[in-house]
């Protein structure tokens, strides 16, 4: 049944210096999503309201916010998901510094991405060199294609308690970058070694597998199970496996056991 009448949108207004929730009345239309209601407020009642969006179809990852306390894409959240009598609260992502209203400063995510070494294609077959293409079977790329679905909405970063509560952004790159690393590490043609940086700089050890990131991912990427856990295993294999440790210790130029 289509809901009728008005809906109360309770939107956060303000900057880092301070602010408060403000209630706005918006007329419902069939199929309306939260982003539509926010836009209606912006066009008619608060022209200077700040909100990010682009595609309005869950493809660009711009419109992330906390709707009734839950991290969501506003463009994919229908109003009729909620109790018609209750106000709908929209707040900016809590993990990132507030800019204004619903917009936060997410630049940190772009900086950590820059620190991740890119794909380094390994030795290619003669046929591959001739064609200038990689020969990779679909079943061998299925698992990295899952990670590449990421739309960089940063909802997982927002949810992860390491980043959200402890604000340990200098110790942990967060789930989004973990799957970026997993994608590169599992690429059939990659030959770079990122294990040391996954352990140290990117801080995979900080994750304690609560799987909250997986729960909020709008692309349904199994971040923890398919991305982070395999990375943890690779780190363990390298650093804590007795055979590997011995080999590392015997490597020329290596003076101490790691």
């Amino acid at each position: 049944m289509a809901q009728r009448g008005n809906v109360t949108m309770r939107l956060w207004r303000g900057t880092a210096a301070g602010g408060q929730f403000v209630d706005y009345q918006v007329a419902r239309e069939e199929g309306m999503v939260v982003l539509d209601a926010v836009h209606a407020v912006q066009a008619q009642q608060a022209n200077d309201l700040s909100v990010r969006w682009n595609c309005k179809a869950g493809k660009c990852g711009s419109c992330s916010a906390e709707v009734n306390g839950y991290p969501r894409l506003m463009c994919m959240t229908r109003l009729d998901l909620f109790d018609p009598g209750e106000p709908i609260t929209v707040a900016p992502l809590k993990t990132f510094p507030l800019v204004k209203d619903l917009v936060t400063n997410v630049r940190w995510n772009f900086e950590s991405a820059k620190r991740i070494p890119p794909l380094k294609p390994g030795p290619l077959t003669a046929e591959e060199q001739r064609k200038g293409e990689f020969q990779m079977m679909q079943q061998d790329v299925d698992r990295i294609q899952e990670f590449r679905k990421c739309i960089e909405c940063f909802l997982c970063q927002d949810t992860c308690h390491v980043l959200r509560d402890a604000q340990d952004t200098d110790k942990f790159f967060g789930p989004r970058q973990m799957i970026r690393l997993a994608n590169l590490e599992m690429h059939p043609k990659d030959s770079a070694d990122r294990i040391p940086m996954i352990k140290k700089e990117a801080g995979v050890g900080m994750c304690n597998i609560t799987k909250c990131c997986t729960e909020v991912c709008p692309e349904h990427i199994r971040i923890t199970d398919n991305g982070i856990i395999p990375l943890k295993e690779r780190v363990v294999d390298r650093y804590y496996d007795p055979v590997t440790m011995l080999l590392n210790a015997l490597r020329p130029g290596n003076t101490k056991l790691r």
Partner: protein
Amino acid sequence: MQYRIEAFDVVVVGAGGAGLRAAIEASARGKRTAIICKSLLGKAHTVMAEGGVAAALRNVDERDNWQVHFRDTMRGGKFLNNWRMAQLHAQEAPERVRELERWGAVFDRTKDGWINQRNFGGHAYPRLAHVGDRTGLEIIRTLQDKGVHGGIAVFMEHTVVKLFKSEGRICGALCYERETGRFLLFKCKAIVLATGGVGRCYKVTSNSWEYTGDGQALGYEAGADLMDMEFTQFHPTAMVWPPSVKGILVTEGVRGEGGILRNSKGERFMFKYISPLFAKETADTEEEAKRWLEGDKAARRPPELLTRDEVARAIRNEVKQGRGTKHGGVFLDISWRDPAFVKAKLPSMYHQFKELAGVDITKEPMEVGPTMHYHMGGLRVDAESAMTTVPGLFAAGEVAAGLHGANRLGGNSLSDLLVFGKRAGEFAATWAERHEAREPDAAEVGAALQGAMAPLEREQGENPFALQAELQQVMQDLVGMIRERGELGQAVERIQELKKRAQQCAAPGNRMYNAGWHTALDIQHLLVSAEAITRSALLREESRGAHTRDDFPQTDKEKWSKVNVLCRPGADGAMSVTTEPLPAWPDDARKLIEGTLEAVTTKEAA
């Protein structure tokens, strides 16, 4: 008014596929390169592209090659394309796609493990490299990663409002930072505009808030020619219900994978709309169409895969004749295929309908109708170098005109971005090598700043959002898919009035991330394109490709098949509209297209 100064060799405006590819190239050639974009990095329109990127890789059908791709592009464009651009595009697209793979893109694979290719409207063979229905995401993320590792300076959430010239040559750009409202002046030797399209001047569109024709307006105001502005592509299939999603795209990939169009009577109507130009290679029975889908190389392609202009007009006609659905669309049905196949090939379509419309496309048909999608027109550029008619100012991607002529084939945009983005970056770097930097005129900079601040300083005035909605209604009603002299004339008058009112927009609040202020500035750009589209549409008295005149339903084989329509600022400041002959086709190009020319006798507006 204070502003910060930045100095670079090459400044790229726009961080979609074209801008990123240009910046990567300029930077790789040792030029200090900046890229500026209105949204966050990776959120440009390119991210939304679904179906695929066209390149004759010959991984799926050996009969394909650049010559066939070239011919298909020219035919799709109703021969108004710049032949040289179409040739370079077809020749260079395969290497541009393969290079992405080496940079980390992971396309869907063939059985043998090479890049897979799918069928699309107007392409003779399976030609579109793709990743499910999220190809644009794959491309933009790959370029973004390549770019940030390549030493490009990124200025995201910055909007360019003015370009400056010195002694006729480009020398700088003024922009504001969205977050703070502070101004930056870029001094540079070359600028590449890669700002995308103009969809926001229509009410029903697949385009985002960014598509306000900024590059078209910035270039035009700097004295560059606009070309082919009348050719606005209405994509045949977008969502029509519920109202909140009206206009959101339904990829042509649905039809590429076997989607069938039916009217409310259950008729598969596209068989009635096969124009003579495509009759030879289009199936005329359901049985043959089915065999084609099953891979029978002797069978001809289903009529659902005719070019976009043809399918959009057919749908509009069905609805007009009373055979539409309850919400004014037609049915697009893929539910006859195996649900697992649909979910694997079209995952985001599946989710889009499920979550936004409550429709399970593996079980029931979608309701679809046309939406403003793409602009073939834009800045006129040199085919080889991508330079506009202003020295030092380059343009690539959707903002540039020429490659697609009167109608773009699906998949030819992503390849356009890569091919001409690279060329623009390359030639901008060469230009920067050979020219010294010059100073923007301080008085001009001051005036531009003042103009940009005006809406904030006005106590009272027009609501920019309301004004934009009014313009969208005018364009939708009077300059839509089917056009006519009287309505176009009315639209010109309405646009003049809106131009005056746009000077009176007021934006309450301060300079920080103020959407009202941004919209007040954007709308001035949007109006330049709206006017150029309307005036060009009025001048072209024929129907061709995406431009359909009710009062001139025929495609004209004489006058109009030989000229482009151009808009440039007249001496009195008003927009002047003229025609110029198409570049002549050399013999070898002519041969490739020959034999198909005579069939351009469409009478589609029936």
